[in-house]
């Protein structure tokens, strides 16, 4: 397993390159999922914006917030 790290200012670039949409809504830039709705963290259901996006598991199209506890679930199930 490899982690590719990114800085907060790079989020927009990464999302564009991965083909994930985002748009400005109510004072923040939210991430839009394939159904056109605001994407939510897979675990805690928090709405995702470019400010709180923490992890992207691209292969399975899953997005997680910046709480490391949330991403644990995905890592634990998949890899260890």
């Amino acid at each position, binding site marked *: *397993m*490899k*982690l*590719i*790290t*990114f*800085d*907060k200012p*790079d*989020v927009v*670039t*990464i999302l564009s*390159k*991965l083909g994930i949409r985002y748009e400005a809504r109510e004072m923040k830039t939210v991430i839009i999922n394939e159904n056109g709705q605001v994407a939510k963290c*897979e*675990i*805690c259901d928090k709405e995702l914006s470019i400010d709180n*996006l*923490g*992890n*992207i*598991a*691209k*292969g*399975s199209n899953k997005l997680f917030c*910046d*709480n*490391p*506890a*949330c*991403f*644990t*679930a*995905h*890592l*634990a*199930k*998949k*890899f*260890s």
Partner: protein
Amino acid sequence: MATISGVDFNTKIKSLIGKIQIGGKTVNIKLNSKAQATPFVKEICEEQIKSYLADKVFFTRVDIAEEVAKIINPPRKYEKIIQKLRGLLDEKDIGALFYAARICQKENKSESEGEIEIRRMAEAYGNRGRTIYNWLRSEDVFPIDILPIIESKQNFPDKESFNAIFRRQWEELIKFHPWRLFVKRGLPKEYQRNEEDLREEILKRFIFWEMREVFIYSRKSRNKIAKKVARYCLAYLGEHPRIAKKSYKIGNDPALRIKIYKKKIVKNQ
């Protein structure tokens, strides 16, 4: 040349990656032009993209990357429990178990409470996560109540029927554990148990459900409440119930396990 969805691999990876984490070390890569991409970097990129396509690369924000990288190895002490439950629990529960194990390990090592981690876990997994953490922290629930269910696997005709029964039992215990009570703290009010709630819960178990033993687990400032409630219940229930106390430490915190039990009455013939 390798491509992703028809896009030239080199072009895509060049604009995509600024930093790569290799063996816990972050390597800065400047890929603005071909000239700057050294053969070593190219090699890594090829490898990256192969695993990327096989779903083995994750994009992680740099400020949480270290934390995420640590998560992947479960603490050895809890490895057996995690191994046995991995195939049986859903993603959220196994995640909570993993993270709880990390908190326990941190608490055991640093002698300080993993307050930040506990808050993070509560945010991610809610009361369910907290329950799993309490189970692991008690050191009783998994070896006594959960693992024996898994060991009975051989008595089931097939894997599916065992899995279904295990999940049902797990779910029931997560929602309501009849013989183990945790004096919770640091939670929103609706999840906390105050003195009165705790008394009611215990008495209900002994009087209406005729249970023979109940365990109360507490820690730090909650030990006082646990002791008070146990004394009250003992007085209320009369002559037969007994109390067995076990004091231990979680990091630097004094913790308490109180067993309230009914002594068996031997009738004279």
